[in-house]
């Protein structure tokens, strides 16, 4: 019912591998934002999110992703999301964000 974030940098591919476990909502979105911002301060590279354990996200969490994507786009970097659950896929379709993020798997 809360959020845990696992991060590590893939030197071979030159991108961040992030695993999100749990729920991103108005309570946990701040934690997500801080983590992402500190990642980009360390290395401004594309972020690949494994969402297989992401149970829930709503507009607060999507807003954080949009904000981070904007920063990445300045350097032509991306957010890639893999293993998305159907309920979250639906939300990305509805909002059109499936065309903004790179969705895989």
């Amino acid at each position, binding site marked *: *019912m809360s959020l845990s974030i696992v991060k590590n940098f893939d030197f071979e591919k030159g991108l961040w591998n992030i695993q999100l476990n749990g*729920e991103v*909502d*108005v*309570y946990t979105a701040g934690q997500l934002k801080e983590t992402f911002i500190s990642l980009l301060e360390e290395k401004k590279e594309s972020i690949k999110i494994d969402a297989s354990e992401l149970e*829930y996200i*709503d*507009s*607060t969490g*999507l*807003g*954080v992703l*949009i*904000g981070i*994507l*904007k920063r990445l786009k300045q350097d032509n970097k991306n957010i890639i999301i893999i293993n998305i659950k*159907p*309920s979250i896929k*639906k*939300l990305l379709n*509805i*909002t*059109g*964000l499936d*065309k*903004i993020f790179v969705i895989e798997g």
Partner: protein
Amino acid sequence: MNTMNKIAKEYTNMSIKKDHIKLSIPNRPEYVSVIRLTVAAIANRMGFDIEKIEDFKVAIAEACTNAITHGKHLKDDNFNIEFIVEDEKLTIYVQDNGKGYSAEKLESPDLNNLREGGLGVFIIKSLMDEVDIVSELGRGTTIKMSKYLGDDFQ
């Protein structure tokens, strides 16, 4: 009589059997997950399928997030949620006594001009069958949203 009571009153006057559940909860982010589980339990009890239960969880969370982030009036206050359970339909009212806004002025999300906000109401309207927002500047907001059990309504 506030907006929520007024709308609820209309309902009560009709003759179909309805159950009312009322929840008053602190306007703080940590309680939104409690509200999501409560709506999931109610919708599950009514026989909604997993996909629709998820829709309710997201929609109510969006409404509560707005009540908490925009609707806030006093720092430590509660806001109200009411569930109206009918045979074929679950209706939810989320009501705050916050600052209110002009719902007509809301813009739809623009993918060519990404903003970090502005998705909440749009998501609620996409996921629910009926949505009605009544907001008065300085007095607060009530958002009413319903979804039907059957697939006939879209």
